[in-house]
């Protein structure tokens, strides 16, 4: 499936990694939209309030784990309190530089989390992932 069938939200405190993710998504081809947050709290606020994805396309969430203030785990806990019909519209992926086994184990224990992806995000990884969403 090509990227035009998806919206993307990237949450990462690192400016570089946000920029890289944005580029990678664009290079996969024509995404319906890409939104970037350097602060997880802003992202969760946004997700709670918006309803401008009325086209029914899936929203791919790429979330970093280690961030100041609200980290990836804090974010997923908040995310899981959302109503099921809202959550169903998202596909949640952790994207991280962590090689800590605890982080990896913990991250896949959340029901909303589909997979744990290693940085750096690449065009091939995103392309493969879109096939399976």
């Amino acid at each position, binding site marked *: 499936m090509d990227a035009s069938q998806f919206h993307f939200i990237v949450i990462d405190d*690192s400016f570089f990694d946000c920029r890289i993710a944005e*580029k990678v998504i664009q290079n996969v081809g024509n995404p319906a939209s890409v939104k970037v947050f350097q602060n997880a709290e802003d992202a969760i606020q946004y997700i709670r309030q918006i309803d401008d994805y009325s086209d029914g396309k899936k929203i791919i969430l790429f979330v970093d784990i*280690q961030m*100041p*203030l609200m980290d990836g785990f804090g974010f997923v806990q908040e995310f899981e309190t959302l109503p099921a019909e809202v959550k169903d519209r998202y596909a949640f992926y952790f994207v991280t*530089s962590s090689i800590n086994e605890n982080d990896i184990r913990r991250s896949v224990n959340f029901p909303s989390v589909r997979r744990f992806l290693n*940085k750096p995000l690449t065009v091939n990884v995103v392309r493969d992932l879109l096939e399976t969403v």
Partner: protein
Amino acid sequence: MSGKIKVLYIDDEVNNLHSFRAAFRVDYQVYTANSSEEAAAQLNANPEIAVIISDQRMPNMTGVEFFEEIRATHPSPVRMLITGYTDVEAVIDAINRGQIFRYIKKPWSEIDIRSAIEEGYSYYLTSSLLTEKNKELQKAYNELDKFAYSVTHDLRSPILSVLGAINIAKQTDDISEIKEMVGLMEKAMQKLDDFIHNIHDYYNMRRGELEIRDVNFDNLAAQLKDMFELVGKTNNVEFIINKDVQSAFRSDETSLLIILNNLLSNAFKYQKKNIAHKFVHVDISVKDNTAVITVADNGIGIHENYLDYIFDMFYRATSEEFGSGFGLYNVKDALNRLNGDIKVTSKKDEGTSFIVTIQGK
């Protein structure tokens, strides 16, 4: 652990308690109890009791049983059992179950008891010192765990950013895209280098000796000017250092520089983007062997909820700009070594002031 050794004596015969107290109250602080319940109450009320001496034969509970019970709740005091010749079973039990330090024969002599208390107390001191040391070690170990976890992240993340950028650059022929990626790589490498500098500062301070001598504040101010004037000019931030040095001041100049360097680099880094008059003001005032240094800015400020944590290792109160969460920790660490103190006042969107107070050595 000052003053007399605190000893608890337990016996169901009140006369024995009296004679024990009479014999030892001059040299030791003696507590007595005529039942195990009373003894437990004494231990709870006086946690500094170092030596417990108990008679074996008591109506409700034997001395050994009492020790076995008390060992779980009060592990540190040294336990000694007083018993008659015939109680061999009791002695074996005492050693196996009550883990006693010493067994004292009945009738006891003052000399026996005295030497038992002295030896028991020195054992108590050694083992509580060891417990203390173990706690410190555990703390250092936990810190190291946290350190390793965060260092792995902070060293890896710029490298992975660069790898990501390389990947994108390899797949494009668009020169402007390639240039953007090279720009990202440069910044990521600068971030990594900053982080390594911070670790270097951290270890320098931890391991390094202080070099106490007269601080040359003119020299210090000149160094700060060198380091920050250009950043100030580039970003249009007014940078002023005021000095009022009225007396000589002895301290470690390297530590002072690390403290000021960190505070200033934060002050310049966390500026608001679009305001007309941006400033960083440093005020150095030295008199009566006390230096008070204020670093004030009108930058983005720190939310009051986070002010209590900003000196914690790896804590970051913002995701704006890059930071390692190491800088203010290093500041606090340096100040601890100089017997200094730091106070912060800050308001979100209005600015931050740090006030450092250091006594001269």
